């Protein structure tokens, strides 16, 4: 099963990447032509740029906000289980549902613009879903919103392992909340933060659905918001699908993802010294 649906397609991707295979029509070995074409393809650079920007925009909030959230729900107060479960709702909802909800919220006539207008903050509505940059920011917002609960649960499990006596000792020494956060909680949670950063980075680089749903399948005005996975999907599917070129793009995606993984791993080890 794993061999049939994971290893074989992977090897096939590597082979196809060096051919001019199409959905209709034959395939010839063309060497590195696909990669040469890629370097000259502005769409490729836009897509890689957008995916990289996505990582930069999404990872810091996804490392920090869920931690604060976990600290907020850690204390056993009455009703806390309700809050924990409720905060998890965006995680279980389908990305399509989430995308449609936010398309409606961020519409020029949607709730967000309405509320801002009613508060007198804005005169004209913000074009969240039509501007090239605002679209990307909106998609990031959706990713962060949907990811909060998931990473919160990971942090919550880790917070339980922070030794209580350290906190008590620090308190006796007169350390305030902020001081204890910096000197006790954060050092104990560092491995978890790295894990969250790795997971969020790899997921963010492979972003597809958020941008597809908010910006449309063409990827925003003039395709300016296309991400790498969207490009693979656009190039490789449909009747005119260019399997060779899209396999070459897939290979780049794989190498870059693996590179990101190794880089974060390395960074982690260096900090250990």
């Amino acid at each position, binding site marked *: 099963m794993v061999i049939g649906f994971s290893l074989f397609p992977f090897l096939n991707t590597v082979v*196809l990447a060096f051919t001019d295979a199409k959905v209709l029509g034959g395939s010839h070995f063309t060497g590195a032509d696909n990669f040469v074409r890629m370097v000259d393809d502005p769409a490729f650079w836009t897509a890689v740029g957008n995916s990289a920007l996505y990582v930069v925009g999404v990872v810091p909030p996804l490392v920090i906000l869920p931690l604060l959230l976990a600290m907020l729900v850690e204390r056993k107060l009455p009703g806390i289980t309700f809050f924990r479960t409720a905060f998890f709702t965006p995680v279980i909802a389908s990305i399509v549902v989430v995308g449609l*909800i936010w398309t409606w919220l961020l519409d020029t006539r949607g709730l967000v613009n309405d509320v801002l207008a009613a508060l007198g903050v804005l005169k004209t509505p913000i074009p969240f879903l039509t501007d090239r940059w605002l679209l990307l920011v909106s998609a990031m917002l959706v990713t962060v*919103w949907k990811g909060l609960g998931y990473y919160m*649960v990971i942090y919550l499990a880790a917070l339980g392992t922070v030794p209580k006596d350290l906190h008590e000792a620090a308190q006796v020494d007169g350390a305030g909340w902020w001081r204890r956060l910096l000197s006790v909680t954060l050092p104990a949670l560092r491995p978890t933060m790295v894990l969250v950063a790795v997971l969020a980075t790899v997921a963010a680089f492979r972003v597809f659905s958020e941008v597809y749903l908010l910006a449309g399948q063409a990827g925003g005005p003039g395709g300016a918001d296309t991400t790498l996975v969207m490009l693979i999907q656009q190039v490789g599917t449909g009747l005119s699908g260019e399997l060779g070129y899209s396999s070459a793009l*897939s290979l780049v995606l*794989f190498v870059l993802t693996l590179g990101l993984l190794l880089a974060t791993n390395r960074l982690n080890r260096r900090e250990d010294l």
Partner: protein
Amino acid sequence: MSRIVGRYALLLLVLVITVGPFLWQLSTSLKGVTEDIYSTPPQLFPLHPTPGNYARVADAVPIWSFALNSLIVASANVLGNCLGASMAGYALARLRFRGRTAATTVFLASLLVPFEAIMVALFLVMRSLHLSNTLAAVVLPGAIGALNVMLMRNAFLALPSAVEEAAVIDGANAWQRFTRIALPSARGTVVVVAVFSFMFSWDDFLWPLIVLSDPAKYTLTIGLSYLQGTFVNDQRLVAAGTMIAVAPLVLLFVAAQKHFFRGVGEGAVKG
């Protein structure tokens, strides 16, 4: 005292941010055709709540047959993962066979390959099996998830082996040990695998989008994005559709919630 109040105030704020958008969608879906959904300031609660949009969305697209397709896919996925992943996990954890280490490595390595990097080749596999544009093609790649196999393996490894050794002495074969001892002891993880599999395949978007082209085969997620493209002018219908898609998951999650948080610990922490 004031700190407690502050804490609850913050909790409520986050609640509004995380759950509010769902409630706003629910509210929109219940607003009748005559009610202005673009009013400023926004009308938070429908003035005359009506379920009419749920009937209208079914007239516009075959949403119930989309839902049925999703249900078929998700059920097959749950079945495949609960049976397949637990058997494979048990084999990796407890049975001795040639190439066990290699098999484990293969499972781990396949976790490193992002799905998005192989989806085009996977589509070709489905086409050569004459399965493209079928629900079977939607199910197959995820039917035994490598991650689930590893989760089950870790859960089985964490069980004390003494009980099973005793069973061996009593003459129990591998199948009996698996069904009578190991599986019942790891049921928390099985529930997690089941819930995750259901959620994952019910929510999946990219793969069905690639492999399905016939609208009659659409799953709910594909159907919904299609709905948005067709009826973008009537947010009430889109809202009703999203509510139909999200409701079963919320119910499932609330029902399985207890096992869920316990089971996650059972499988993951003792890795």
